[in-house]
């Protein structure tokens, strides 16, 4: 192929951004795709966020029957909340006091995008994909998650057709919280399994400036 590949100089000059634009323009000129069609697909992707996954978890925490359905048939249960994941299989793996789950795609970057949005860079990079299957505790520690020795770690390797979502443990101190409050403490990283939710109340607004009379 005459077109260059992986050359550092062309990469730095925005080569792949320009190549994408060239291919898009040609496909539009040939009537193969329309600009509006592309815009629509982009809007669908941009609308996907980990908050969908967080909503699934919050529902499972407050509704034991939903939790049971979620663990038995992940795709069916997320569809109940209006989330469409297409033909993919979805397995929801539940953390317990004795078991912590974490997900990866060692071969690629398969990720439950319909529930979490676009994967973060670290999920796609070689280091996480290489190491989390061999030394998950060390990797989790790099994310700031120290697990007790008596908690087993199970690593789930995704495939093109099989995606995973972690159902974290509902933290202590959240008795009586509403589904909306619970949703707010479920982070993207907790849904991948590199973090766990904690019961933190909303942070008080930080003072923009010292209170009058207190400034030195």
């Amino acid at each position, binding site marked *: 192929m005459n077109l260059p590949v992986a050359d550092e100089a062309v990469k730095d000059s925005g080569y792949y951004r320009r190549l994408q634009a060239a291919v898009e323009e040609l*496909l539009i000129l*040939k009537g*193969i795709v329309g600009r509006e069609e592309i815009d629509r697909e982009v809007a669908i992707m941009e609308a996907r966020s980990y908050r969908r996954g967080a909503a699934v978890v919050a529902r499972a925490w407050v509704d034991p029957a939903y939790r049971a359905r979620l663990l038995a048939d992940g795709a069916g249960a997320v569809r109940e909340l209006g989330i469409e994941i297409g033909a993919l299989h979805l397995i929801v793996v539940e953390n317990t006091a004795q078991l912590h789950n974490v997900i990866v795609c060692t071969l690629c970057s398969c990720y439950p995008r319909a529930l979490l949005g676009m994967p973060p860079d*670290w999920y796609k990079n*070689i280091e996480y994909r*290489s190491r989390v*299957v061999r030394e998950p505790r060390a990797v989790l520690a790099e994310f700031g998650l120290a697990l007790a020795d008596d908690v087993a770690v199970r690593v789930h390797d995704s495939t093109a057709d099989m995606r995973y979502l972690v159902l974290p443990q509902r933290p202590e101190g959240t008795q009586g919280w509403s589904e909306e409050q619970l949703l707010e403490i479920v982070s993207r990283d907790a849904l991948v399994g590199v973090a766990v939710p904690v019961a933190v109340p909303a942070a008080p607004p930080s003072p923009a400036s010292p209170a009058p009379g207190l400034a030195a």
Partner: protein
Amino acid sequence: MTSHEDSRGAAVVRDTGTSTPLRGPHDVGGLPAGPISLDEHATTEWEYRCWAIATLLRDPMRGARIGRPGEALAGLDESRRHGEELGDRYVKLAYGERAVHALTRMLVRRGVLDEAEIAARLASIA
């Protein structure tokens, strides 16, 4: 090379080296690697548009637009394979860059676009 049987009794052969053809550049599970960078970049417009185009082209109805009814003009597995064929260059490219590379290769290999017209168009883009 090691082999054993999995829980269903199927033979499992595992390449234990890093340089034999059995392990492609993408097949990194279990290999030693450095610390994980937690820096994240927000997905850029061109990355989104690349994936949007690939999604549209995977529709088997798409080929009808160029007289190839019933034919998808892109494939997910094919896209991965083009990335994996980068060999040592695989790790030099970011995920979104591999996606653009793969989309371009797919379109050329399928005869939807040719390299000369892509190169000419590319020259007109700042």
